[in-house]
């Protein structure tokens, strides 16, 4: 694929590749985990894989936001870099409060 001159289009292509990879990784892990769980419900490997697959799934859109802030800074588009940072701040509130609840 050629690198497009329009930086927004380049960001869109990076985002597309990230999503494709995130979906491929998380669904593969979930499929294997689900199969393990169905055949051996008591084995810890299955539920560990299921947890991992769901975490990758949740992390994918978060990584997209991180990727966007890098691209907007590279473009020198400070308004949208700031906007993206605000979203990152909101996501960290969620992640921190989830980590605090986890026993």
């Amino acid at each position, binding site marked *: 694929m050629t690198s497009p001159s329009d930086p*927004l289009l380049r*960001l*869109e*292509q990076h*985002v*597309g590749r990230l*999503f*494709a990879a*995130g*979906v491929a990784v*998380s*669904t593969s892990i*979930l*499929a294997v*985990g*689900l199969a393990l*769980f*169905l055949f051996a419900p008591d084995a810890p490997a299955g*539920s560990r894989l*299921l*947890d991992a*697959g*769901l975490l990758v*799934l*949740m*992390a*994918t*859109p*978060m990584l*997209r*936001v991180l990727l*966007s802030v890098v691209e907007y800074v590279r473009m020198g588009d400070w308004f*949208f870099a700031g*906007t*993206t940072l*605000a*979203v990152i701040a*909101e*996501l960290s*509130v*969620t*992640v921190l*409060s*989830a*980590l605090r*609840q*986890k026993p």
Partner: protein
Amino acid sequence: MAAGAVAGGLGALLGIGGGVFLVPFLNSVIGLPIKIAVATSLMTVIATSSVVSVSSVGRNLINLRLGMLLEVASAAGGVGAGLMFHALSDETLFLWFAFVTGLIAVMMLSRLDRRNVLDASADPGRLGGRYYEDESGREVVYQVKRLPVALGVSALAGVVSGSLGIGGGILKVPLLNAWCGVPLRAAAATSALMIGVTAAASAPIQFANHYIQPPLAAAAVLGVLAGSRFGLWFAGRAKARWLKLLLAGILALVSVVHFAKVL
């Protein structure tokens, strides 16, 4: 998995995520507690968002700037709903679900024939966009109007996403289309991108609170992804008016069923 597939197919049609169909199915048909149904659905919303976004890349349908700006509001709503979710009662969730689906059905029916397309030579401005539409075979240009309205609706969509597991695109898409001048397909693609981050703003909290049952969530995610492939294929061929009618009809039914549950 079959439920996930059907919900995914319908959801992908308008970039709304399959949750509006999956939540009532898991709750009413399978008999899962409403909060488990909501949290499970939220995981499928994230998956749908990622997959639909991959398919939209390169067609200029996703408005990355508008999406990122609105995500500030929708993620805030998602975080708020995620933090409150544990404290909400089931009855509150049923009423809220019935209200939201009924509202959207009415709204869609009242704006069936509106289009928001400018002349191809028009300037889309900083937040607007342009893309090539297969259906009409011409370039579509649009400007974004009433940004504060879009931000408010996105915040509400974030709350709806985190509390009802229905993506929230179902609110944003018709409103971005009807009030903010964004054509249906661009609104759907931009919303599909946004619902992933919006759902991810509350999903980790629900995961930590054990509302997400991993095997169930995995089956639903895999089912929705299979279904959304069909939905995307179909959406590329169907008329926008027909899509709106179909969706409004299903929503009205879902709303009536949920009001009936509480009353």
